[in-house]
C-alpha cells in the first residue's frame, strides 16, 4: 500500500499555516501512514542524533581566537571566559565558503582535543554548523522585538524547545518528530521488518512517527522478557498462558491493548537486536571508548556501531537494513551555575565519544556510511548569571562522518546565501543577533540543518517539504556539509 502523500501534505500544510501564528499548538494530526513503496537503495546509510539535554553552551565550545573577536568575547562573558591561550585552534578557511563568515578565527574548548585533531586533519570528517536554532522563518532583531514575524512558541523553555528541535514544528495530538517522519516516508528502503529507528536513551519526540515503528532499548542491549517456557511441561504451560493474556485483542480497554502491544513489540524485536549485537565476528568497538561505562554516551555509541556493522556484514535479520536512524543522548548541559568547572567534563566526554565513534566505524570501513550530528534544547545566553548562563536560542552544532566535508564552518546568513555567519559577540544593545537579553537569534534553522541531513539520507526534495513544512520559508534548503 502506498503512503498517502497527499494526505500527509494536506495535514502538514495545516501545521505550516498554524505555525505562522502559533505553531506548537496548531491542530496537527498526521495521517496514520501506510508504508511507502517508493524508496530502494543499494547502499547503506545511518543517521545518528546525539542530543545534549539541558541546552549546550556552544559559545564556550567554539570561541574566537583572533584578537578583536576574543576581546568582545571576554567583555560579554567576564565571569566565564576561557583563557585565550588554552583554546584549541581550528584550521578552517580564513574567508569565503567554509570560513566562520566574520573574518575571525576560532578554537575549540580546551577539553576537545580529540575532535580538534579530526577537524584539522586532511579529509576532515568534522564540520561546524554555525548558529542553528528553532525558527519558523528568518527573523531579524527588530522583527523579533516588535513581534512582527512568527517565532517558535515558548522560546527558552527546555521541554518546548526540545520538542521543537526534535519535531520542527511540534504539534499536538500526537506530536511526531522528524526522525520518525523520515522513517515513515523512507520505510520501504528496508527489506527487514526490524524497526528502522532505535533509541538507546529513552523516548522523545524525535523518534515518534506515524507508524510508531521504533525501538527503544538499553544503552548496551535490548532487554528481553524471560518467560519461563521450559517450565511446567503440561500441555498448557505457563508461557502459553502468559501469551494468551498478552494476545492482541483480548483486552477490553484501549490502555490495556496499548500495554499488550508494547509487550508484544518488545518481545518480538529484542531477540533479533541482541543477536545482532553479539554476532559472530563483531569487532571490539568498545575499545575505541576508553571511558566506556554502563549507560553513558560511549556505551550507546558503541552499540550503535555494532548495529551498523551488523547491517553491513550480513548478520541474520539485518541484511535488509539499508537505512537506520539512531538516537543517543547525554545530559547535564543546563549550566546555570559553576559552568567553568562543569563544562570541561561535558565537552571532553562529547569530544572523546564522537571521535571514538568515528574511529570505531573507520576501523571497520564504515565511517562514510554514518553521519552523526548534535542537537540540543537551545543555545545559552551570551550574557551570564554570575558563574553560569541562562537559556538561550541559537547555538553551534557539530556534524561528523566520512561523508561530511569537514574542516569547515557551515550555515546560513542574514543575506540567505547559505554560508556560515558566526553571530556577533557584542553586548546586547549593540548586538544585531541578540534578541535583547543575551539570547542569540539563529541565522540557520533546524529545518535547514535537518533537511541537509535527510537529503544525504536519500529523501527526495518533495518529501523533505513534507517532513519539514517550514523549510519553504528558507531559500537555502541544503547547507552542503554532507
Amino acid at each position, binding site marked *: 500500500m502506498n503512503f498517502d502523500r497527499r494526505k500527509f501534505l494536506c495535514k502538514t500544510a495545516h501545521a505550516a499555516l498554524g505555525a505562522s501564528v502559533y505553531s506548537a499548538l496548531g491542530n496537527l494530526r498526521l495521517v496514520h501512514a501506510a508504508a511507502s513503496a517508493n524508496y530502494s537503495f543499494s547502499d547503506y546509510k545511518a543517521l545518528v542524533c546525539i542530543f545534549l539535554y539541558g541546552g549546550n553552551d556552544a559559545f564556550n565550545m567554539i570561541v574566537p581566537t583572533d584578537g578583536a573577536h576574543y576581546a568582545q568575547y571576554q567583555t560579554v562573558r567576564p565571569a566565564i571566559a576561557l583563557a585565550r591561550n588554552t583554546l584549541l585552534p581550528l584550521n578552517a578557511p580564513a574567508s569565503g565558503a567554509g570560513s566562520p563568515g566574520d573574518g575571525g578565527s576560532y578554537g575549540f574548548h580546551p577539553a576537545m582535543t580529540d575532535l580538534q585533531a579530526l577537524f584539522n586533519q586532511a579529509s576532515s570528517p568534522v564540520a561546524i554548523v554555525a548558529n542553528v536554532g528553532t525558527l519558523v522563518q528568518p527573523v531579524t532583531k527588530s522583527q523579533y522585538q516588535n513581534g512582527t514575524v512568527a517565532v517558535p512558541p515558548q522560546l527558552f523553555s527546555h*521541554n518546548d524547545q526540545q520538542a521543537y528541535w526534535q519535531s520542527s514544528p511540534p504539534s499536538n495530538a500526537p506530536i511526531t518528530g522528524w526522525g520518525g517522519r523520515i522513517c515513515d516516508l523512507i520505510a520501504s528502503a528496508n527489506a527487514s521488518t526490524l524497526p528502522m529507528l532505535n533509541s538507546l536513551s529513552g523516548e522523545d519526540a524525535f523518534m515518534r512517527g506515524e507508524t510508531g515503528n521504533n525501538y527503544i532499548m538499553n544503552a548496551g542491549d535490548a532487554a528481553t522478557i524471560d518467560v519461563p517456557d521450559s517450565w511446567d511441561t503440561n500441555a498448557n504451560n505457563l508461557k502459553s*498462558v502468559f501469551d494468551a493474556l498478552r494476545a492482541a485483542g483480548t483486552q477490553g*480497554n484501549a490502555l490495556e491493548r496499548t500495554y499488550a502491544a508494547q509487550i508484544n513489540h518488545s518481545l518480538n524485536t529484542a531477540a533479533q537486536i541482541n543477536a545482532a549485537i553479539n554476532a559472530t565476528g563483531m569487532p571490539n568497538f568498545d575499545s575505541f571508548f576508553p571511558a566506556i561505562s554502563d549507560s553513558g554516551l560511549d556505551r550507546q555509541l558503541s552499540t550503535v556501531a555494532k548495529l551498523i556493522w551488523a547491517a553491513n556484514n550480513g548478520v541474520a535479520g539485518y541484511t535488509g537494513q539499508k537505512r537506520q536512524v539512531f538516537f543517543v543522548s547525554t545530559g547535564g548541559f543546563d549550566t546555570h551555575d559553576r559552568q567553568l568547572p562543569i563544562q570541561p567534563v561535558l565537552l571532553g566526554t562529547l569530544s572523546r565519544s564522537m571521535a571514538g565513534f568515528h574511529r570505531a566505524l573507520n576501523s571497520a570501513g564504515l565511517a562514510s556510511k554514518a553521519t552523526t550530528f548534535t542537537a540540543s534544547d537551545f543555545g545559552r545566553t551570551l550574557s551570564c548569571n554570575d558563574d553560569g548562563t541562562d537559556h538561550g536560542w541559537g547555538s553551534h552544532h557539530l556534524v561528523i562522518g566520512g561523508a561530511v566535508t569537514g574542516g569547515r564552518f557551515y550555515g546560513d546568513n542574514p543575506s540567505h546565501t547559505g554560508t556560515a555567519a558566526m553571530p556577533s559577540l557584542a553586548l546586547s544593545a549593540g548586538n544585531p543577533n541578540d534578541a535583547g537579553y543575551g539570547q542569540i537569534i539563529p541565522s540557520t534553522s533546524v529545518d535547514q540543518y535537518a533537511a541537509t541531513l535527510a537529503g544525504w539520507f536519500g529523501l527526495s526534495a518533495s518529501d523533505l517539504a513534507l517532513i519539514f513544512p517550514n523549510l519553504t520559508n528558507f531559500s537555502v534548503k541544503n547547507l552542503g556539509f554532507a
Partner: protein
Amino acid sequence: MSKTVRIAPRWRRGLVLALAATTFFLDTAHAASKAYQPSSLLLIKPWISGTPADASRFLAQTTFGPTDADIQRLVKLGYLAWLDDQFAAPPTRMLDYLGWVKNTLGEDVDTNHVLEAWWLGALGGPDPGNNALIHRDQLRQRVAFALSEIFVVSTKTTLIDQFPNGQAYFYDVLVNDAFGNFRQLLEDVTLSPAMGVYLNMLSNQRTDSTKNIHPDENYAREVNQLFTVGLVLLNPDGTPQLSGGLPIPTYTQDTVKAFAHVFTGWNWADCNPAVHQNFSDCDVNWTTGANMQQPMAAFANYHDNGTRAPDDLSGKQLLNYPGAANAGLLVDGGTPQSDLKFALDNIFNHPNVGPFIGRQLIQRLVTSNPTPGYVQRIAAVFNDNGHGVRGDLKAVISAIVLDDEARNGAKKYPDSFGKLREPLLRMAHIWRAMGAQHRCGHNKVVTRSDKSVYTEHYAAQPYRYAGWYSAWSTDYLFNQRVMYANSVFNFFRPNFVPPGEMAQKNLYGPEFQITTDSQIAEVTNDVLPRAMWLDIRDTCDSTDDYGDVAIDHLRDLALAGSGQGGPADPADRLVDAYNVRFMGGQMSTYMRTTLLNYLNRIDHYWDNGGTQDWRIARIQRALYLILTSPEYAIQK
C-alpha cells in the same frame, strides 16, 4: 454499624456543596446507608464503601496498593470515615527516619536512606525505631508522591545529590502540605533550598550591568509553566480557551522576565553576603548541611524591587487576569518578602490553577483521561471549598476520589478509563498485598576486610537494606525512582500520547512515556523471581541485592486448594481473591477462564521434587500471570 451525624469538618462540608450539583451517586447497597437519611443537599453517599472489590478500587487510587486488611477496614468504615482517619494519621517524615539512622544507628546518612524513608512511607507498617508506632498515612504519602511528580526536584543534580537531608526536607514539605493549602505548598516549595538549587532561585540576584549579570529565569518559567498555570489559558473544565481556533498563551517571555526579577535576593538561611565578593559565594554548609533544611532567607540588597536604576526592572507586570490584584502589576519599592508574597498570590489566584493542578492530580490518582466535567468539578472545589477558601487540598483530594467518575468511570467509559500503574506503585503493591518482609529480619554484624565490624540493622522491615534492584536503583530498571527524574519535566508528561490505538483515539497515557521496549521487559521480568522464587522463609542472605525482600506465599495456602488439586479441587477461590486484592474485581471473564484452565491442572502430583506444597505452585503462578498481565497493568 451505627451512623451518627457529626459536625462535618470544613473540607467535607465544602465537598458536599460542590458535589451536590453533580449526578454523584454511588451504586451500592451497603447496609449502613439504609439506616441513614441523607439531607436534601446530600445526593451522594460517600460514607458507603460497597463491596470489597469497590474498596479495592478505591484503595488502588488512594494508597500504595490494597491489602486484604485495608479492604476489610474500608468496607467497615466507609469512604468518609476512612478519609477522616487518613487525614488524622500522623505523617511519616523522611527527616525523622534519617534522624533515627544517624542518631540511633550511628550510620552515615546517604541518599539510599532517603529511598528507605520513602519505602517506609509507601509500604507503611511498624516504625523501625519504635515498633509500637504504625505508619499508616497511605493517602498522605500517595498524594505527596503525586506532588513530587508535579513539583519536581531531581537528586540527579549535583549538590542536591550530596545532601540527603536537603532531599528529605523537600519531600517532607510535600508530605506536610499534602493536606494543607496549595498557596502554602507553593511558598514552602519555592523557599526550599533543594528547589532553590534545582531551579536556581537560590542566590539569584538583581541585574548588575557592570558584570553583565541578569536574573535567572529558570524558576520564574517553571513555576508558571509546570507548577501552577501552564502555557495556555484554560476553561474551567481544563480544555484550552481558543481564539481564532488557536490556544491563547497564558503569559509571554516578558512575564517570565518580570517574575525572574521578583525572585531575586534569596539565599542560604545563614548566608552573610558581606563577607563574600559575590552573592553566589554563599554556600551550603558542607559540614552539617544544616542550611539545606532551612527555608531560604531574603537579602534586600540583592533583590530587584524596581528602585535601583538603571538595572532594576521598574513596574513588573506579572500575570494579568480578571480579578488579578492591581492587574498583576507589582508596585516598586517592596521587600523581598512582600514582593514574593505578591508574586505567589498573583500566580495562586490565576483561574488556570484549579483545572491545571486538578487534572494532574486526577491523572496521578485516578485516570489519564478525565472528562472535562470531572476536571471542572475538581476545579470548582479548588476555587472554593464551600467556605470561600481557595486551594484547600483536603477538599480537592476528597473530591477527586469521591467523584462519580472516580468511582464509576470504569463502567461508564470502559474503553478509556484508568491509568497505567507506575512501576514504583506496582512494586509497592505486591509487597504490601503479600506481606513482604526483609528475609534477614534481624540485625547482623558484618566484618569488613580490615577486620573492623559494623552492624546492619534490618529491623525486619522491607525498606531496610531493601537492595540495589529492589529499592535503590529502580531508575535503572524501571525509569522511575523517587525524586530522580531526568528533568523538571518529570519521568513523563501529562500530555504524552502513546502511538497506535491511543493516538488514533486521542487518549493521553503519561506513564507510557517511560514504558519503553526495555522497560516493559524489565517490569515484566521483575515479577518472575518475586512471584516464583523468593519467599519470606528463605534463608537470609545479606549479600543478595535482589531477593532480600520477599513475599509470604503461605498466607494464601488455604485459598489455593483444600484437597488434592486438579479440576476437582479448583483454584477459583484463589483467582477470585486475587482478582479483588490486585485488580479491584475487574478481571475479564476471558482472563479468569484462561487462568483457571491452567491453574486447575496443578494438583498434588505437582511436588517440585517433593520439596513444596503443590498449592504454592498455584499461588506462584497465579501471581506471576496476574502481575504481568495487561489487564492488571491498567489501574481502573
